[in-house]
């Protein structure tokens, strides 16, 4: 079961993805006991993302999702609990990040920490560059604006060199 969950989590990158995923699971839990003769992926047609529906269809065909409604309900409940335990990384950056950039950051965290994370991205151009990171209670400000604050007006004007 854990392997299945881990596989699903790989597709969740940002906090928005996470919230959407949780919402879709909630929706699944609502339909678990209705029209049980119809497969789940068909029951949620038009209610969830197509991508999510395809994944659901795959899991149902492979028999990963149990057949009985009661077992299905507890499967989704466990999945939700698993997702909620994944740590979030708050990241304040100065630009709108690309999908590829986010994937690279997520991968970096996985390699460094051996743990999946969910990225909570805030775009704040005021920090100029760099990033402000909050992770598991730790706060680090690696923003460019902080570095610039330390410079004298002279250093800013002449490109970092101080002429007498």
């Amino acid at each position: 079961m854990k392997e299945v969950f881990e596989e699903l989590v790989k597709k969740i990158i940002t906090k928005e993805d996470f919230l959407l995923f949780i919402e879709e699971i909630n929706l699944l839990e609502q339909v678990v006991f209705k029209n049980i003769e119809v497969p789940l992926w068909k029951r949620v047609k038009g209610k969830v993302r197509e991508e999510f529906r395809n994944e659901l269809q795959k899991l149902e065909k492979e028999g990963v999702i149990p057949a009985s409604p009661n077992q299905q309900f507890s499967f989704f409940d466990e999945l939700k609990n698993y997702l909620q335990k994944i740590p979030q990384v708050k990241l304040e950056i100065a630009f709108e990040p690309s999908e590829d950039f986010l994937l690279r950051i997520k991968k970096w965290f996985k390699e460094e920490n051996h743990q999946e994370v969910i990225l909570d991205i805030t775009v704040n151009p005021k920090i100029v560059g760099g990033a402000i990171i909050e992770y598991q209670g730790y706060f680090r400000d690696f923003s460019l604006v902080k570095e610039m604050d330390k410079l004298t007006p002279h250093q800013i004007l002449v490109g970092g060199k101080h002429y007498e």
Partner: protein
Amino acid sequence: MSDFRSYLEKTGEIGQIVGLSHSIVYISGLPGLKPGEMIITENGEKGIVHGLGKEIAEVLMFEPEKLKVGEEVARTNKPFQIPVSQGFLGRIIDPLCRPIDGLGPVFGEKKYLSIQREAPGITRRVRVNKPLETGVMVVDLLVPVGYGQRELVIGDAKTGKTTFLLQAMVSQAKEGIICIYVGIGKETSAVKIVEDYLKEMNVFDKTVMVIATSENPSTINYLSPFSGMTIAEYFRDRGEKVLIIFDDLTSHAKFYREISLLVKRVPGRSSYPGDIFHIQAAVVERAGNIKTPDNKEVSITALPVAETLENDISGYIQTNLMAMTDGHIFFDINVFREGKRPAINAFLSVSRVGNQTKTPIDKALAGWIKRKLVEYQRVMGLSQFGVELSLETQKLLDLGKKLEILFNQGPKTIIPRSLQLFLFGLIFFGFWEDKPQNVMKVEIDEILKKYKEGVFSEVESEIKKIKNLEELKSFIGEIIPKVKKILYLPL
């Protein structure tokens, strides 16, 4: 906000409010948080870390209505501190040192001090060796208090405890001692009475009132004695003698119980948490007579108050407080009902270190009074049977009654030691022996009035030199004609 940001950058740790329950907030994050540490929220509210769980920390906040779930929190890596200033004299402040008297901000230099400081160690402490005059005769003679002593004032509600404490404050403030009144869970009207009394007696500028009313959150009330003691230590460290009054610590215990039950600590006896003794003893222990580095003696005298119900002094908090103080002054409801003021039961009151501060004449006089009062109480029982009493017994009864009259003292009457010696010298000499009790009452009032006018200023200076009872008797004998002249001179 800027405070929050700078602390955040300094400590590099961030947390979030994940739960709110009255004045207690639950915080996740902040991995290096320590108990007793001060935290700051993004809107600048400060709090004290009360307990640490695996994932969640319990924090006491003082203005919970300003907080919301999800708000960010930073560590400060400092214990909880309050800004203390010389400008607090003559002001009413709350336990967070914010003025609440409507007179605007407190100006002047402020020093940030931790509210939880360690009590002075044994090597810094000095024996209690100087008497502290409360201006209340029954206390000064029979249950004497010394500078640096911790004396519990215990009794039922409305038996005159606060009145006595105010008299002690006035008497001390007039001698230049800094007085701090810490009100815990008081009603605003009661605070007003205290303020008016101190102003009327012209000592308000020598006092600091640290007030937490019953309208404040329990966390503010819990903080009051700590803040009061920190302010007392600030003045003591400047070389001043301080008298601090905690009115009252039974209410404080109740507020702490409320907090402990809210954070789901295991309740102990009477639902109080197990550390209630430690919490209160740690505050009271900070009082005492100590030596400064330049060999000067400074002191904090603490008069904590405990309230009882129908004279029951065996309650949990009451006995705790008795154990952490150097004696107690017991305000007896039965004595109060007999109409005696102050309603102090001198026989059930104890002063463990006060007696060592007394001069031989005070000790001798107190011994004589106690002996006479014991004999009086014994024959009082006998006289109720209606038996015919000997002349000697009748005299003893009369003396006992007259001693009680002398000990009766109005709420605004402060009697200094010299006057106390003079009045008891008169009774010891037998000045009122053949006079009816009502005449004695009138004469005492007249003496007090004349004393205030300065008529007895010579007597005052002479009486201070007297060493023993015999000398006192002969001195009184010498000045009797003068006293008679003053008392009976036609207008």
